[in-house]
């Protein structure tokens, strides 16, 4: 009869063993190039900001509308472009180069929703599309709204509205 436990060594849950192993793991962990990543994100994020500002100015100048109205149009354009590039399949390649610079602005928000529904469109309109569109973006919306309320109350308390 084969004895499954013959050579079994009870190392599970041993704190010393875990710490010892952790040092080996950390020793072989490659260094992420954080400075370069941050610099790339700063540059791409800045470029998006500059592009957005340019769009806003252009809309306001050519369409003869107020800066506020132009801002709405600018945001819509950026969202549209992010969704389009996601659907065409090359936004993720941009994000690999540009790092978080493309994910943090509103382009990343649109991208997260668009990529989620691309994955789940085969599951149908209710269980796929509807249930999963906010898979990644849902937390952002929830805590964004909650944070807005809290800061609104603080502002009201301090500045009286």
């Amino acid at each position, binding site marked *: 009869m084969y004895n499954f436990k013959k050579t079994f060594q009870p190392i599970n849950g041993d704190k010393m063993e875990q710490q010892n*192993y952790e040092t*080996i793991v950390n020793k072989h*962990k490659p260094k992420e190039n954080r400075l370069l990543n941050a610099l790339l994100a700063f540059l791409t994020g800045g470029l998006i900001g500059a592009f957005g500002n340019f769009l806003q100015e252009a809309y306001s100048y050519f369409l003869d509308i107020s800066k506020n109205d132009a801002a709405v149009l600018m945001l819509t354009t950026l969202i549209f472009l992010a969704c389009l590039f996601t659907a065409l399949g090359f936004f993720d*390649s941009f994000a690999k180069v540009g790092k978080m610079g493309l994910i943090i602005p509103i382009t990343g928000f649109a*991208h997260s929703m668009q990529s989620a529904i691309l994955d789940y469109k085969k599951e149908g309109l209710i269980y796929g599309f509807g249930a999963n569109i906010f898979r990644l973006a849902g937390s952002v919306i929830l805590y964004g709204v909650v944070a807005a309320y809290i800061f609104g109350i603080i502002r009201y308390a301090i500045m009286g509205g």
Partner: protein
Amino acid sequence: MKINNVYIKDTVTISGPLEYQGPYGKYFTDHINDYYLDKSYELSEVKLQKMALNKLLNKVEKTTSDIDLLVSGDLLNQITASSYAANKTLIPFLGVYSACATSTEQLIIASSLIDSNKIKNAICLTSSHNLAAEKQFRNPVEYGSPKPKTATFTATGSASIMLTNEKTKVKITSCTIGTVQDLNQKDPNNMGAVMAPAAADTIYRHLKENNEKASDYDLILTGDLGIYGKDILKEYLKQRYSIELKDNYDDCGAMLYDLKKTKEVTAGGSGPVCSALINYSYVYEGLKNKKFKKVLLVPTGALFSPTFSYQKQSILSIAHAVCLESES
């Protein structure tokens, strides 16, 4: 556990496009150029498995009624790709799951049934699909969040192998069933570190059980530790078990891709088919041509789900070992 009288009849390996471009691409039976074989990622994986099964049946000139057992496994929830691929074949079917160590679990189950004369032959079938796995375990496919350097890339493909009690050139001689290991690793982006303890334990137990040394093997192959996991395993084995792995050790995940050219795979391949692709093509051919005499396959699997991971539980791992020898 010793195994007598179990031989490998033939194998089929179908890889995805990136795997085909890798250094071992020329050994694969076939490859696909498009990830979308069917309407969805999941159905594409089913189709991949069906292709591997049918190709193998053609190769060995058998029909489904000649096969006594089909053992399949994959990564999808409730191993559905395997069940749908087995649908309508009417071969007695066992679905198994050990994540990326599935292929050797199948070999162990099938060969022990053949060894004890319960059945005459069996087919083991495994697959994974990069996009289907991304959708299930990570972020949506098109979502482009940057990955750390230790992350691995689920391989696409399907591999099948037929075991029989008739004598052929390659034989299964022994195997060791792994134990679940937990060294409190929680980073799903560093699977090499999660799974190395399981590989270390299984290699140690296998060598001890059979009174062997690591140098007795022409090749020891782990499944998908990746380039960093490989170094962790070597150091841990040496420190904890005093076993030194030399040039005869490699890792299928680190071998499968051309890591310099295909940057998106970061630390290497993973998935149940990752080790199976290399083992059933390059290793099997090598054993058949007597390039290798004795090979130890130790694929490793991470036993976890996103739910347990979000609940802050550590990621468990397992490794099953199978020893293949060329028949003289």
